[in-house]
């Protein structure tokens, strides 16, 4: 009992940290979620894999509810579930041939818990401890994977940038993009145009530009409004995605959707970089649920009492970019066209975990 409580405390304090935005950024959230799940798994008790899976799902639901617009949590939970299910199915395959077919998603949907439960307890009582350590090992690997995302993406730089190219990036907040460009600068000489991303990422933009310039990359900061004017001179647009959906669309910093649209108008190729942990098996049905709206004070200074309250102000932090506006995704496992993303997603997640709630 006490252990159950312990993991709940862990989850609760993680949730309040998420809510307070004390953990932010996909990368941090992803690793933090991994760590949390490791601790939850090691401190919780369960009697069947069924129960185990439900427990993790329950945690996943809570995390997603706490910060529905941070997709990394959900993705990681689903990845972990996939690890568990893989283990379980392997076990059950080896232990009893009867259980083998029950892992297909259709069957899962139709089968009642009544029949599966006794099977579960029977089959897994013994390897509980094994399963626990195997899953934890799996999560460790996942953490390693997340940590090495940049390196793998960087390997592809040479294929994508040619000498003296002009690149434009509207997402100076993205660490992945920064690493990509820094890596590329070792092999190629090019110019980078950076949009200011005013008002939310302006400071990120400046430090981004500074880092590039310090690496002796020709860097130009342009206001967000200037994108159309310079687009005709741009060779490629490079964006960092916050999360990628199964349909190939992605959520990224505000303003990028328009930039991609401009690129489309000028037939400029757009490529997006994203680590695998940003791929979500869900489909973006509702724009409202994707886009976080930030502090209005950044759009209009709060002191301005002439306007505050009289003018409605919105400050969306994200934008949704439709798959048609993106040419390729560069991930740590290679480059893919947007309409192939659903396959990648299928490889990494189990269909039954798409909906956690």
């Amino acid at each position: 009992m006490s252990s159950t409580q312990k993991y709940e405390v862990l989850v609760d304090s993680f949730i309040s940290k998420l809510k307070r935005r004390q953990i932010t950024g996909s990368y941090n959230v992803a690793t933090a979620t991994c760590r949390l799940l490791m601790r939850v798994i090691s401190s919780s008790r369960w009697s069947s894999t069924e129960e185990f899976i439900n427990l993790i799902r329950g945690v996943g639901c809570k995390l997603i509810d706490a910060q529905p617009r941070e997709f990394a949590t959900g993705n990681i939970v689903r990845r972990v579930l996939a690890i568990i299910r893989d283990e379980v199915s392997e076990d059950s395959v080896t232990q009893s041939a009867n259980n083998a077919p029950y892992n297909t998603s259709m069957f899962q949907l139709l089968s009642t818990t009544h029949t599966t439960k006794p099977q579960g307890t029977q089959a897994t009582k013994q390897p509980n401890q094994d399963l626990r350590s195997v899953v934890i090992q799996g999560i460790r690997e996942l953490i390693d994977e997340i940590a090495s995302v940049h390196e793998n993406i960087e390997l592809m730089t040479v294929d994508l940038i040619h000498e003296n190219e002009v690149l434009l990036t509207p997402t100076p907040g993205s660490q992945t993009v920064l690493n990509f460009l820094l890596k590329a600068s070792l092999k190629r000489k090019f110019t980078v145009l950076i949009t200011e991303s005013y008002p939310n990422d302006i400071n990120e933009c400046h430090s981004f530009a500074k880092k590039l310039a310090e690496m002796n990359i020709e860097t130009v900061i342009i206001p967000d409004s200037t994108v159309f004017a310079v687009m005709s001179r741009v060779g490629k647009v490079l964006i960092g995605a916050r999360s990628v959906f199964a349909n190939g669309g992605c959520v990224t910093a505000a303003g990028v959707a328009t930039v991609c649209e401009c690129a489309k108008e000028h037939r400029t190729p757009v490529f997006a970089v994203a680590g695998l942990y940003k791929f979500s098996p869900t489909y973006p049905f509702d724009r409202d649920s994707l886009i976080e709206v930030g502090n209005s004070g950044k759009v209009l200074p709060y002191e301005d009492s002439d306007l505050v309250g009289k003018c409605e102000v919105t400050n969306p932090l994200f934008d949704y970019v439709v798959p048609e506006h993106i040419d390729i995704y560069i991930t740590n496992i290679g480059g893919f066209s947007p309409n192939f993303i659903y396959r990648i997603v299928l490889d990494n997640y189990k269909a039954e975990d798409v909906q956690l709630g």
Partner: protein
Amino acid sequence: MKKDDIEEQKIQAIVLTDSFQTRFMPLTAIRPRCLLPLANVPLIEYTLEFLAQANVSEVYLMCCSHADQVQQYIDDSKWVHPSSPFTKIQTIMSLESRSVGDAMRDVDSRGLITGDFVLVSGDVVTNLDLSKVLATHKQRKAADRDYIATMVLKQASELHRARSHIEPACFILEKGTDKCLYYQDIPPVNGQKTSVNIDPEILQDVAEFDIRNDLIDCHVDICTPQVPTIFQENFDYQALRSDFVKGVLSSDLLKKHIYAYVTGDEYAARVESWQTYDGISQDVLERWCYPIVPERNIIDDQTYTYESKHIYKEQNIRLSQSCKIQSRVVIGNDTFIGDGSKVQASVIGRHCRIGNNVLVENSYIWEGAVIGDGSVIRHSIVAADAVVGANSVLNPGAVIGFGVRIDDNVEIPHDTKIVKEKIRKMDDSLSLSEEEDEEEESDASIVGPNGVGRLYREDVHEDGQYGGMIYQMAQLSVSDTSLASTTVAHQHRRKKRTQSTTSAYLSEEEDEQFDKEAIATVERAMEFNHDIDTALLELNTLRMSMNVTYHEVRVATSTALVKRVDHFIETQTLGAKEAVEKIFRKWSSLFDRQVFDNEDQLDLLIILQTLCSQLDASYNSVVLLWILVVLYDEEIIEEENIYKWWHSEKSKEIGARDRVEKWIEWLQEAESEEE
């Protein structure tokens, strides 16, 4: 305090849950201000969330009025769970406190403070990054030996909606360092011209300075442990700003420095009047205070989600097809909105029922309220469980109290506050100016024939506070009386509590000791003819140091005075009348600071009666009579209370009444003649 962790970062916070004001009457008669909902979240949550965000580890909540409710709330909240970010959260029952000063003295005498601490009031809404403030605090502390506190101020503009229009404050800050040089309250925003008087000496060594009248004072202060000590030493400090800050800055003796931290980007404001309640609610809805927004679901069981145009909905709400939710709206769980209704810039709590064709505009409808079909509600507050009938109109500024029922087809005029039950006199804050006519306000004329509720009359000077939402603010002088606001729940409990829970350490001996000391003090004062203020100060100090209730103070004072009178009569220096006149004319004003509400008056009468009854029977009732006359003349005791006292059982038991009877009769006659 308890943890000896070597955390250097351990920060303590003192939360003043009581505002010591009556601005939110009549609602605060039932619920304390810090538990009133703002965007469906009790105000205190915003403060605690802020402290949690700032990695504060220990939180002490100073509770005065409705202390039990606050304590109950905290005990049931997530903050006491093991997952709470605070290592310690404790409610301190400081029932005797009648001002910020008292609370601070209590803090000091309890020895809660171990290092620098954050002092906030329980009605702050902010997304301030406290770590930056703390860093500046540290720098200043290192740089300036006389540094004691930093006040956090938010850059705004003079007439900003989240800035108090009632007590706009003017700060003079040294340029560059933000050292506060001078502070002055300025009269409320009501078109009056005002001036700030600055002693040129203050500015003598200052190169450049700013005079700021555009800051929101959100009452978030970072203090060194010296601050409570200064309060202790200067027991006449009541208010945090107008007494403490002003006092410290203008004191030649203290030579302490207070700094300001002016924040531009972050949001910080205080819900301290209806006007700021409205302003801050709108700010929260419009996301000026991001990430403090409704969909953050500060309370665990909330399920708000954001929709474009700043609409926040919880799960399980039922909206009719044809209702129009325009923009800036919060709708709580299990609420129903009928056909053709329009909601704009409003907050609707949980379990509400809004009928068909209702117009709700810029209003706040709290949990469980019901609005009938076709009603129009503009710029108003409908408190929890109130009912507004069909086709009624609430005009701007209306406040419908808890559980009030407004009948169909009623129009509530501007700035009207309606309460369910007459707030009994003592309920009704300590404001002495309370008019006490048996206003048998026929319910029907206000709330309609089937309504429940009556008009709440407030102190004259508090009129139209709410008007700030749309109308001009009437002035509200922050007098001593309104500073010391407590309510009936508190008053009743006080006597019980003080002896038991609160001041458990108050022993009988101390009690007696106090009596002796206090009597001696008053006697000394009379003997050497001190001025009243000095005597009061001494008494107050005694009260503080011994931690006794005002009741004891009254007993002591009365005892001393009656003794003196008795002495004169016994020695036949003066007749009964003259003696009483002589003593009480002058010294009865001591009671000004000891008697605050009706109950206190009754208490005083009983005390005096008891004392008199112990005198020589030949003149005791005469003395009592003349005491009464004087107290009545000096307006320390109100007529009402004299009657009440006269008819009370207790008084009848004590005796010494015979001579008084006539006077009472005369009083009553006089009154009926007047009418």
